[in-house]
């Protein structure tokens, strides 16, 4: 038997104590690992959110919320001045509206407004979106005050989007699956419909439908990055939508592209100064910072908790080892008297301390690996629910545009966090255990060095 074996065997001298220390250290190491896992997952998420930030600036009418009436809308003339601002390389303008099926019945007090000046917001299209009433089922839902059901011929109003860039709508890259795209600069009676919309209304390229009492022809059928996000959309050119809805020169939002992300903040300020209080001008950095601020809180909390858990573990083993050394004072004195050096006795106690922490590490690693992902999700979920409420929340199928969409995509992204647990985490756990053991045995070693065998003989 050597000094290490003796140390390991000493760790099992009192089984009740060994079990208690293992459980307590296991909790401490497990908590450290969970916090490390959460910290890494959140840090990775923050990095990915930051990496996904584009060099675009969102411009929307002040006080405008998606789906509401654009009574304070911006105009093409106002936005033309934005095009001349330094570093702005492109400006996409959009006018959105909602059209309800002419043959469908809307329930009373349904949140639908008539934004067009011609007063005919109807279409022949039926929405492919099925609303679940009063929290039943999955997918989009509607709550009817006092209970009840939607009318049997109800169809959700569809979004019609007039844009100067039909290749990207509501932060979704558009892919034409059939037919061709529209001419975004001209007022034509051509439209693009989503694959879901085409299927619902049995349409193909060349089919026609009505909007605002005017017949439009399906020029192309599209899908987006997110099929569900664009399912309820019809895309026309900006001049077409302005002409059909009788809102000449009006836009409900715009996206300015800047030459470099470094110029994003300065250009945002320049646009805001140019448009004044009539517009809300935000960039993705601001929105991303707002969105990830709860994640930063989680990151800080997990970091402090990690330090706290390691410190608690160290304190537990430190106090335990001091207690053990005090308890075995005579034994240490005798061992020294019969020829053991301080280093040898310290090594024996370190082996005992490492044994305790490795036992705790096994329990902690199992617990940490099992609890890491759920706790990370819980922390992020609680934090983002409490902290991330901003513009653009709510029912999105109304066809809103502007910062709300960018925000919504960030927000949905951060809630969808997943902690990866690899060998590195297990190695960190073992390293933490060894660090805890070494810190824990430091004071004990000091006491061991102070024990003089002569005192043991005197105590006889």
């Amino acid at each position, binding site marked *: *038997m*050597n*000094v290490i074996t*003796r140390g390991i*065997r*000493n760790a099992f*001298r009192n089984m009740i104590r060994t079990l208690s220390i293992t459980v307590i250290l296991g909790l401490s190491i497990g908590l450290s690992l969970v916090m490390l896992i959460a910290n890494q997952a959140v840090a990775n998420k923050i990095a990915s959110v930051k990496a996904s930030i584009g060099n675009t600036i969102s411009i929307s009418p002040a006080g405008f919320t998606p789906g509401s009436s654009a009574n304070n809308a911006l105009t093409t003339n106002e936005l033309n001045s934005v095009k001349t601002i330094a570093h702005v390389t492109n400006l996409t303008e959009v006018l959105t509206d909602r059209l309800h099926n002419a043959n469908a019945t809307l329930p009373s007090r349904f949140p639908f407004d008539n934004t067009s000046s011609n007063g005919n917001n109807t279409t022949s299209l039926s929405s492919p979106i099925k609303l679940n009433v009063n929290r039943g089922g999955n997918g989009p839902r509607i709550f009817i005050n006092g209970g009840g059901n939607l009318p049997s011929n109800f169809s959700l109003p569809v979004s019609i989007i007039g844009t100067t860039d039909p290749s990207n709508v509501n932060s979704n890259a558009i892919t034409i699956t059939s037919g061709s795209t529209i001419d975004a600069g001209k007022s034509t009676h051509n439209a693009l419909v989503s694959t879901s919309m085409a299927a619902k209304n049995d349409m193909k390229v060349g089919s026609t439908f009505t909007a605002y009492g005017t017949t439009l022809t399906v020029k192309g059928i599209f899908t987006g990055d997110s099929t569900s996000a664009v399912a309820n959309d019809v895309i026309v050119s900006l001049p077409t939508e302005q002409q059909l809805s009788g809102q000449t020169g009006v836009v409900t939002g715009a996206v300015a592209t800047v030459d470099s992300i470094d110029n994003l903040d300065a250009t945002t300020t320049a646009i805001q100064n140019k448009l004044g209080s009539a517009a809300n001008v935000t960039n993705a950095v601001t929105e991303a910072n707002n969105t990830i601020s709860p994640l930063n809180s989680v990151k800080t909390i997990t970091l402090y908790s990690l330090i706290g858990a390691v410190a608690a573990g160290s304190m537990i083993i430190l106090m335990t080892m001091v207690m053990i050394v005090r308890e075995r004072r*005579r*034994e240490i004195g*005798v*061992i*020294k*008297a*019969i*020829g*053991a*050096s301080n280093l*040898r006795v310290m090594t024996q106690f370190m082996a005992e301390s490492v044994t305790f922490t490795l036992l705790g590490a096994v329990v902690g690693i199992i617990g940490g690996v099992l609890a890491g992902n759920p706790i990370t999700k819980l922390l992020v979920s609680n934090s983002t629910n409490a902290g991330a409420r901003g513009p653009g929340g709510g029912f999105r199928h109304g066809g809103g545009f502007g910062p709300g969409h960018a925000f919504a995509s960030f927000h949905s992204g951060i809630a969808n966090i997943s902690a990866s647990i690899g060998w590195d985490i297990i190695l960190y756990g073992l390293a933490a255990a060894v660090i805890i053991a070494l810190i824990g045995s430091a004071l004990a070693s000091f006491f061991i060095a102070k024990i*003089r*065998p*002569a005192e*043991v*003989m*005197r105590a*006889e």
Partner: protein
Amino acid sequence: MLQVTDVQRTFKSGDTTVTAVGGVNFKIPEGKFASIVGQSGSGKTTLLSLLGGLDKPTSGSIEVDGQDITKMHDHQLIGYRCRKIGFVFQQYNLVPNLTAIENVMLPMEFAKVPVAKRQARAKELLAQVELSEDQMKRKPGRLSGGQQQRVAIARALANSPALILADEPTGNLDSQTGKMIFDLLHSLSRSQNTTIVVVTHDLSIAGKTDKVFRLKDGKLVR
């Protein structure tokens, strides 16, 4: 040969200096069995600590096998204790979670004796102090006081020391077992040619040793 020359050990206690051992001189030839007797507080244990290299004298010299241990550094003293000294304590002081044989192997581990040799020597010593094979595998808690003291004696003999220092080795035993332990020490001093110094206040035991030193107030008296 153990030669103690004018050894003094004083302690500071506040403003006063307490003399635990004051100018002790004696000589014990190799293989002799000596006893130090005296009342409680007479300095017996302090003197034993000085002889064992557990403590350093304030002045004087202690020579064991021609080596002055008072001039040794701490790390040299560890080696001295390991190879030249065997301790036997009143409370036996065996390591409770080691078996009898493992306890005897312990000093040999510190002296870096190979495992196989350690095991053979430990068995031989335990057999010498009349412990059965079964008892050798028992932990101290499952041995009687006399058996534990015999294990302690075997442990003290492990590295074939020049000097065995026993502090009240029979103090915790009944008279019959005490006599048996004393006889064992006596016979070992003869058979192993080991110098043995026993601290005791039992004059009947002390009377049977080759030399008796009486200690009073830290000084040897006749």
